[in-house]
């Protein structure tokens, strides 16, 4: 289902307009439902059980509470995922996020709920409890046969634990993962995802991997290592932080008090108005320095930079209209190594959406000045002014949407370069007759031109057309999706070749029996420019066979990928595959040891690369491994009533 919807959504032009809707705080997917606590009814429980239902056949899923991944602490039975916090939550607003990814597609849903100021009796708010949740995972393997296998013996371990003391409205906890790996690239010991938390009532101080959420113009999501202080009182929340400006890992503390290089400082204040917090106001400020370049999860060519940024955002629903407005200001030096001084500039946006019966309208306007930048959001493109409008309607079995957008750069009217103007429009038609495949057809048209072109500048003059068709069909035991996209980029400047691209995807997810799942997928992408055609293919297959329910399972995955160019500059193929037979033996071991899981597995893997391009090379590796995987739960709870 999700696939056709994503294809349709992608056509709007309008990045801007669709982005406005995507930024709404509540995202709805009928296949993922929060059962409790409800968003509209504040929870009287300080440790509310979070229950999420996911449609049968979908899954598995990740569960995040206030940005913290609690999946490993949750239980899942059939369609229901349940999680109850070990310690009382602070009064105020909390966010639940569920990410589901499977062969049917990717879905991401987020809700907020509110915990009341007064704790419910017997809810752990006043009693003293000592708890631990998590476990120790160990895996060891031995290569029985193989060629070009570097490590004959493998071993990995992971201690994932949350332990703490809670009572009288206060809590102290420590959580994290400590991994150990005998083979493979990277560090052998990797601590990660750790957080030391001290909480009293609605206030908390966290040291470790924290997530700060400011405004879209300052820091929409800043997940870094450092300190985060949260104070939540009287319908207002205050946050202050000091974190590393770049992603760090291992034992790096992130924060440094003697040196402000690669440090970010800042905070945010939030409050809400009207019933059900229909209107939320957020103000955020942060400043800091970054040494630029790449980090362990980021490849970048950014220079060392420093700056400060502030933003004020209003979001909510008024008179049936969803709106989000924000203003931002920054003083930013994108390169501290040169003589250029920091630039001061601003940014502003307004996004509005409203439904009139079956018709919904939305509009978005945004201006980001050429000198505007947030030291916490280096991925953002600046020097843009954009306007987007879109309309969508449901007409029985059909749905129709259209969008239009206009944007330009060079807002400062720099005479040394042109003003590039982008105009785009698109339309989408969806048909979903019951019992028949659903069809989505979409078309997108964009024009890129240059105004005020200075002498010597190549300018811009191109037309882009994209046509997309998607067909999907679902039955109780299988889902199939076929989509195709054709794009033409016609650069009308002299001597500049046109580019055409085409992509095709076919994916199937089938579960003919409860214990059998397989998902083949095919993808092809073709690009033609300057008389050279490039083709990239990917065929992939995943398979799971439950030979003996909850005992013996065979799982396999494999793929074939190839790249070819008509000018012989590229011609390579790659085969990969792994088949694993898993025997769950923890029930057999139950009389000797209480294990959460024990798996004896035999796996075979194969990898082959053959490059017949200008620098030909070939390699092949295969191996047969016998592994033992153990999971020892470390759950404990001791509680004493006052």
């Amino acid at each position, binding site marked *: 289902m999700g696939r056709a919807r994503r294809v349709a959504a992608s056509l709007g032009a309008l*990045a801007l307009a669709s982005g406005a809707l995507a930024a709404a705080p509540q995202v709805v997917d009928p296949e993922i439902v929060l059962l409790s606590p409800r968003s509209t009814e504040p929870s009287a429980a300080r440790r509310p059980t979070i229950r999420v239902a996911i449609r049968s056949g979908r899954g598995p899923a990740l569960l995040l509470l206030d940005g913290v991944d609690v999946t490993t602490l949750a239980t899942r039975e059939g369609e229901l995922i349940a999680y109850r916090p070990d310690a009382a939550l602070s009064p105020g607003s909390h966010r639940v996020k569920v990410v589901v990814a499977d062969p049917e597609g990717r879905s991401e849903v987020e809700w907020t709920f509110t915990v009341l100021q007064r704790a419910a009796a017997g809810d752990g708010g006043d009693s003293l409890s000592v708890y631990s949740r998590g476990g120790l995972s160990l895996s060891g393997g031995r290569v029985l046969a193989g060629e070009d296998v570097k490590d004959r013996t493998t071993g990995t371990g992971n201690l994932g634990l949350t332990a703490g003391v809670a009572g009288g409205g206060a809590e102290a906890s420590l959580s994290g993962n400590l991994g150990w790996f005998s083979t493979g690239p990277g560090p052998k010991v*990797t601590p990660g995802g750790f957080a030391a938390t001290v909480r009293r009532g609605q206030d908390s101080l966290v040291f470790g991997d924290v997530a700060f959420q400011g405004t879209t113009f300052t820091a929409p999501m800043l997940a870094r290592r450092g300190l985060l202080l949260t104070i939540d009182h009287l319908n207002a929340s205050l946050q202050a932080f000091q974190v590393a400006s770049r992603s760090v890992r291992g034992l790096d503390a992130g924060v440094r008090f003697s040196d402000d290089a690669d440090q970010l400082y800042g905070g945010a204040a939030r409050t809400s108005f009207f019933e059900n917090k229909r209107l939320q106001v957020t103000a955020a400020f942060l400043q800091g320095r970054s040494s630029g370049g790449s980090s362990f999860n980021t490849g970048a060519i950014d220079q060392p930079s420093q700056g400060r940024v502030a933003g004020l955002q209003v979001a909510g629903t008024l008179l049936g209209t969803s709106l989000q407005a924000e203003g931002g200001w920054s003083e930013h030096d994108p390169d501290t190594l040169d003589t250029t001084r920091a630039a001061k500039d601003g940014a502003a946006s307004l996004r509005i959406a409203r439904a009139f019966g079956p018709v919904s309208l939305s509009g978005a306007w945004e201006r980001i000045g050429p000198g505007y930048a947030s030291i916490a959001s280096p991925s953002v493109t600046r020097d843009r002014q954009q306007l987007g409008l879109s309309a969508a309607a449901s007409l029985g079995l059909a749905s129709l949407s259209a969008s239009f957008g206009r944007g330009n750069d060079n807002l400062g009217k720099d005479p040394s370069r042109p003003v590039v103007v982008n105009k785009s429009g698109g339309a989408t038609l969806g048909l979903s007759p019951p019992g028949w495949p659903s069809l989505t057809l979409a078309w997108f048209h964009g024009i890129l031109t240059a105004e005020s072109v200075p002498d010597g500048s190549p300018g811009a003059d191109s037309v882009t057309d994209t046509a*997309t068709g998607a067909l999907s069909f679902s039955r109780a035991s299988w889902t199939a999706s076929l989509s195709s996209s054709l794009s033409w980029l016609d650069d009308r400047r002299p001597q500049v070749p046109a580019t055409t*691209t085409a*992509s095709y995807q076919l994916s199937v997810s089938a579960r003919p029996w409860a214990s059998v799942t397989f998902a083949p997928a095919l*993808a092809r992408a073709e690009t033609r420019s300057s008389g050279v055609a490039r083709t990239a293919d990917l065929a992939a297959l*995943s398979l799971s066979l439950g030979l003996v329910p909850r005992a013996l399972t065979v799982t396999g995955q*494999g793929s074939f990928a190839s790249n070819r160019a008509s000018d012989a500059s590229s011609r390579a193929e790659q085969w990969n595959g*792994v088949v694993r037979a898993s025997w769950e033996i923890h029930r057999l071991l139950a009389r000797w040891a209480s294990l959460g899981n024990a798996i004896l597995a035999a796996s075979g893997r194969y990898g082959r690369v053959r490059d017949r391009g200008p620098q030909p090379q070939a390699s092949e590796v295969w191996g047969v491994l016998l592994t033992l995987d153990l999971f020892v739960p470390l759950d404990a709870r001791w509680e004493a009533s006052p």
Partner: protein
Amino acid sequence: MKTTALRPLAVAAALAASGCAGPAAAPPPEAPPHRISGGASAGPLQVERVELLFPNGRGEIAVRRNAGLTARALIRFRGSGPLLARWAVDGMPVEQVSLLATFGDTLTLDTSTALPTFEPGRHRLALELLQPIARVSLRSISYVVTAEEADPGGRP
């Protein structure tokens, strides 16, 4: 900031996995410093920044066996042109993304299907850019699959 949009004419294939982490490829040399000063919307497509994240916002995560795990790439680019990329786990391509990027912007690419988590151990996820040639040193991020089952009910 969501001035950008998910442009998933991409989509793709599913699956794959392995614990056969191959040797780490030596990262290519960094491109010479490049100053961004606006006007990034014209010219051929050039990728300037690629950040890889898991749903927790970080470049590392630990999940249960058979848990649904996805990843996201934030790509800042300039210019216009075709972009072709593949997600690869432990060197095995698992998903292909193809789209026409225009008017220098920021792309958000999400994996459309679950990453392989059936084998305990550490796995490396990379986004391989086939077109255009990356001017930056692309990184890989890692996730740890524990031996604990994500679904006691036996859901695959």
